[in-house]
């Protein structure tokens, strides 16, 4: 399948709580790093590369190593929104492949829920004069409205329906109900109904920014996690089987005169990653897509090549991408996603974690014999400036 084996994910940890009052983001990062190293069977002294998206209170790339007590030979502070971890995984692969390091640590911690951060409906334009914010500030464009612009255009351009897209929320909740961490998350965050969803319930939930409704929007949680990426010679001695990184792609997209808002950066990053991996979308078992909103998933499925442009509505309708739906083998967001399990603001790391679980056979919604997984993060805002990071993982 893959041409070579250059680096693998061997350690993962998802912080179990989504509401953690009194806990700091750095505690979440450190606890997660410790647990992920334990998962891999590695120790703190093995780590020689530190990746950080400048989250937490420790001060990003300048201060984090000092806080942790580490003198890494590679420091990478790539921050591109929620897809930061897909970009970092790509960079870790390259640094390992050229011999600069052997054991890379990616970590994330956030207390967005405890701090009551209004990610989707607050003012994000800042107080420093800025060329783009100056053209948006007077109009009250919330983050959710930005994604709603994409959904509206997708529906107009391709005839995609609300009913079809609701299928994304249905299959994702189906997975969440099987995941004890997700059930606790929804309970702790006081979801109105911690239960399986129907298409009708999604369509009946309240409008937030037309045409996006509440049950198409991700949660705002606390949380975090860590991922350990290592060289092949290290992977050989690890406790868990490796999830090999066999292809990566990075891209950006932004509003342009005459541009097509229904096409994301994934249309650039996806083909690069699949080309490097030497595999096709129709061979993929598991697809983990950053489900900030229903429309993000639909657009990215198309751009990665899981269906033709404009046809994601049919692909997801009725919850077809549930792991136990017999109409298609492809399973999506099997951990319960940002919609129903975990979204502290930058979900990208959980895409790598759940993809790895599936390749190990450890998911709570396990697809039998999952061999090939895709993690695709979308960072920034889908209808505005954003990034796409695609990582393709394979087991032995």
């Amino acid at each position: 399948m893959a041409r070579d084996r250059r680096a693998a994910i061997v350690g993962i940890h998802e912080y179990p709580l989504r509401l953690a009052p009194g806990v700091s983001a750095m505690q979440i990062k450190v606890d997660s790093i410790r647990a992920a190293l334990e998962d891999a069977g590695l120790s703190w002294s093995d780590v020689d590369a530190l990746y950080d998206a400048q989250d937490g209170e420790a001060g990003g790339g300048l201060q984090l190593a000092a806080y942790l007590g580490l003198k890494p030979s590679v420091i990478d502070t790539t921050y591109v929104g929620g897809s930061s971890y897909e970009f970092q995984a790509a960079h870790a692969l390259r640094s390992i492949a050229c011999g600069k390091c052997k054991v890379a640590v990616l970590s994330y911690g956030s207390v967005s829920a405890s701090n009551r951060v209004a990610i989707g409906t607050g003012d994000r334009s800042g107080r420093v004069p800025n060329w783009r914010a100056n053209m948006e500030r007077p109009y009250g464009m919330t983050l959710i409205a930005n994604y709603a612009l994409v959904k509206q255009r997708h529906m107009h351009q391709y005839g995609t329906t609300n009913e079809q897209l609701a299928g994304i929320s249905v299959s994702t909740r189906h997975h969440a109900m099987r995941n004890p961490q997700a059930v606790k998350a929804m309970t702790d965050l006081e979801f109105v109904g911690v239960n399986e969803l129907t298409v009708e319930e999604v369509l009946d939930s309240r409008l937030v920014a037309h045409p996006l409704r509440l049950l198409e929007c991700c949660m705002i949680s606390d949380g975090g996690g860590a991922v350990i990426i290592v060289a092949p010679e290290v992977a050989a001695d690890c406790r868990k089987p490796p999830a090999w990184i066999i292809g990566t792609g990075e891209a950006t997209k932004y509003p342009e005169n005459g541009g097509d808002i229904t096409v994301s950066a994934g249309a650039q990053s996806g083909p690069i990653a699949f080309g490097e991996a030497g595999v096709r979308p129709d061979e993929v078992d598991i697809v983990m897509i950053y489900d900030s909103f229903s429309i993000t998933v639909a657009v990215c499925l198309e751009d990665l090549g899981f269906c033709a442009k404009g046809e994601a509505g049919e692909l997801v309708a009725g919850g077809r991408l549930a792991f136990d739906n017999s109409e298609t083998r492809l399973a999506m967001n099997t951990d319960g996603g940002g919609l129903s399990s975990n979204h502290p603001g930058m979900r990208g790391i959980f895409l790598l974690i759940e993809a790895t679980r599936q390749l190990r056979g450890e998911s709570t919604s396990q697809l039998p014999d999952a061999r090939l997984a895709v993690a695709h993060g979308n960072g920034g805002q889908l209808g505005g400036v954003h990034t796409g990071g695609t990582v393709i993982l394979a087991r032995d």
Partner: protein
Amino acid sequence: MANRPQPLLPEPNTGPFWEGCKAGELRYQTCDACGAVVFTPRLHCPSCLSGDLSWQVSEGEGTVYTYSVVVQNRVPAFIELGAYSVAYIDLDEGFRMLSTVLADDPMRDIHVGARVRVEFEGQESGEYPVPVFRPIG
């Protein structure tokens, strides 16, 4: 009069645009080197990186490319507006602009593809009127 947040000026890219609003002009740029239409305003051409741009004045008519009706916004100035639209407008001169379409009932009266015309809405919040759009006819 409305009470929208004002742009933060001085800011070199967008300053001339907002001065245009004071003069009742919807301004955009063209590149002297390659002819590209440039918007959002900036100091260079994103097609060829030339720094030689000229300001133009739009006729102010265009088409709704896409829109949303915002129901929930925690910023006080927008809570007052109730349900309001945000929209990308494709102006006839070839540039796409984020704005709002004013309508009695945004859910009923705004459509993708609808023709719209600019007007400049005075603001209690400051000296810069904000360009907004209304359906034509």
